[in-house]
């Protein structure tokens, strides 16, 4: 009954007018950026961060979370109607969704995406409510050694799950860790890697790096891509499913949801990986796999449910362990810190209103998305006709103002520009920026826990092996690493991303 009480408490927080209003703004903005290609949830959240300074922490987090899962909805709309993924997690939705739209079944595709997402969102919310508190309790018992090993495990799986070359992903993580170490050393007060620039003595802000690598770089890359947009102007009608469509889609939604929930929890997972994996799985188990790529409704239902489920369950490691599983979650940590909240297992116990309020708001937000989005599809499609040449200077401007307002220092803007350049080089070298961001946020934590653990054991490094929790996690990490080096699995992994 504890659970019911807690959910009641959460609903009480989520349903206050102000939180409801910001939840609405969050999902609306999220859908908007989801619809617009070339503007991701991460850059948007970073841009809107200054807007949340004056809000209560819980309201701010509700809005930011809304942007993330709202974007998953929006992305599918563009994918289905325009054959252009508004969000990278909707890439696979294009395959069958657009085909359905060309056959005049756009309404059904949109409906199944929305309903599937809603089901997945509801289910994932329950998973969070059920699993997060016990997990947090376990996490409270973790010592520094266990934390260190946990982060190593997290980073290792982030490497494994990243697209592209393993070596490069590893290098990106290490580079991220190094960048995260810039600034004053916590233990000795010594300035490291600051080149005697006083603005660097506090380290480089996560938001600044994120805006550079994701915001600026994306703009530059988009400018050279010159994507053509073919918009289906046909009126979307019949926003509902026939009985046979429903029958075909329901099990796919269920499978997608379960898969998404699991992959969302994994470090390095989240919405993107979930949708890819769900599509691949669906293609394997579905009876009419020949239909895939030619407008199979399962091909829309499964990935769309999975990406929403994954987006939500990726909050679990964040809320219970204080460890982000993807760059968006890392940004959430940044937002929490701005509001003086220490992310980690203490949140569940010390700030139940915050924790349960956020969870309840996710469900409320999902409900809003279903109710508002289907009627609003026409407006979203119109928005797509806004040419990019008007859009990108606005994006740059909001990024610029956003960065400046963090600490009123123009130096931060230069740093972000530098990371924009760096990000562009990474794109050209086919290096994924996501592991870099994870390393960046985990680096300082990793060092702190390593030092604390060694301090407690008086410099004896065997503590990582003798502590059972720590040893267990290191073993899992080693096994995972061993597995990917085996060529067979590596090939499978590539298959998933090739789809």
């Amino acid at each position, binding site marked *: 009954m504890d659970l019911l009480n807690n959910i009641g408490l959460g609903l009480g927080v989520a349903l206050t007018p102000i939180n409801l209003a910001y939840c609405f703004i969050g999902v609306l903005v999220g859908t908007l950026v989801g619809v617009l290609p070339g503007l991701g949830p991460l850059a948007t959240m970073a841009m809107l961060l200054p807007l949340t300074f004056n809000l209560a922490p819980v309201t701010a987090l509700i809005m930011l979370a809304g942007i993330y899962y709202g974007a998953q909805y929006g992305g599918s709309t563009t994918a289905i109607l325009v054959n252009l993924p508004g969000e990278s997690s909707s890439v696979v939705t294009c395959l069958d969704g657009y085909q359905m739209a060309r056959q005049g079944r756009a309404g059904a595709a949109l409906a199944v995406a929305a309903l599937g997402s809603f089901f997945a969102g509801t289910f994932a919310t329950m998973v969070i409510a059920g699993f997060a508190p016990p997990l947090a309790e376990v996490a409270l018992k973790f010592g520094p050694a266990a934390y260190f090993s946990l982060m190593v495990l997290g980073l290792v799986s982030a490497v494994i799950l990243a697209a592209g070359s393993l070596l490069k992903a590893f290098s990106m993580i290490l580079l991220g860790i190094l960048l995260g170490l810039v600034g004053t050393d916590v233990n000795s007060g010594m300035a490291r890697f600051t080149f005697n620039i006083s603005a660097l003595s506090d380290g480089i802000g996560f938001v600044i790096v994120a805006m550079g690598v994701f915001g*600026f770089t994306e703009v*530059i890359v988009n400018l050279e891509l010159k994507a053509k947009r073919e918009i289906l102007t046909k009126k979307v009608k019949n926003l509902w499913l026939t009985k046979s469509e429903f029958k075909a889609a329901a099990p796919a939604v269920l499978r997608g949801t379960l898969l998404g929930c699991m992959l969302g929890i994994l470090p390095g997972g989240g919405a993107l990986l979930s949708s890819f994996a769900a599509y691949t799985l669906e293609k394997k188990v579905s009876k009419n796999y020949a239909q895939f790529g030619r407008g199979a409704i399962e091909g829309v239902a499964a990935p769309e449910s999975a990406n929403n489920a994954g987006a939500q369950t990726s909050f679990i490691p964040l809320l219970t362990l204080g460890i982000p599983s993807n760059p968006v979650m890392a940004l959430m940590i940044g937002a929490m810190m701005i509001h003086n909240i220490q992310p980690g297992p203490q949140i569940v116990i010390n700030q139940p209103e915050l924790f349960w309020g956020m969870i309840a708001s996710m469900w409320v937000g999902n409900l809003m998305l279903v109710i508002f989005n289907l009627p609003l599809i026409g407006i979203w499609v119109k928005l797509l006709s806004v040419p990019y*040449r008007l859009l990108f*200077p606005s994006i740059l401007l909001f990024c610029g103002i956003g960065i400046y307002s963090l600490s009123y220092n123009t130096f931060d803007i230069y740093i972000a520009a530098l990371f924009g350049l760096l990000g562009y080089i990474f794109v050209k070298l086919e290096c994924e920026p996501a592991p870099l961001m994870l390393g960046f946020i985990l680096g300082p934590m990793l060092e702190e826990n390593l030092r604390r653990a060694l301090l407690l054991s008086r410099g004896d490094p065997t503590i990582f092996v003798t502590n059972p929790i720590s040893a267990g996690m290191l073993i899992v990490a080693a096994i995972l690493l061993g597995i990917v080096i085996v060529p067979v699995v590596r090939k499978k992994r590539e298959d998933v991303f090739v789809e």
Partner: protein
Amino acid sequence: MVMAQAYPFGNSARMGPGYFPTLISGLLITLGVLVALRGVVVEGHKPGNFHFRPLFLVLASVVLFGFALERLGLMIAIFTLVVLASLGENEFRKREVLILASILAMGSFLVFIYGLRLQIPVWPLSY
């Protein structure tokens, strides 16, 4: 393949606070060498072409925005950014860009200065 950007960072660390960075740098250098070696041994595809025009103009517009913000105020900084960034696009339409800049300037003023009361200088003389 050009992971070498990280190299000079390598061992500039000191003992004590430098322990962890040295460890990580060491690993990174090893990996960098590995990646580089693979680049030499395995015939891979070349890195994609750099498009310098958008790269330079976008970054320059942002840097100049930062430069102008505290000295000339938000309004002038916005016009600088929008015009310069728009040059990065192939078709530059003067009127459209100026209209966009004006709208953005007004909007930013309403939202950030009036609405959120951020402490940003608006005009050159607001000091």
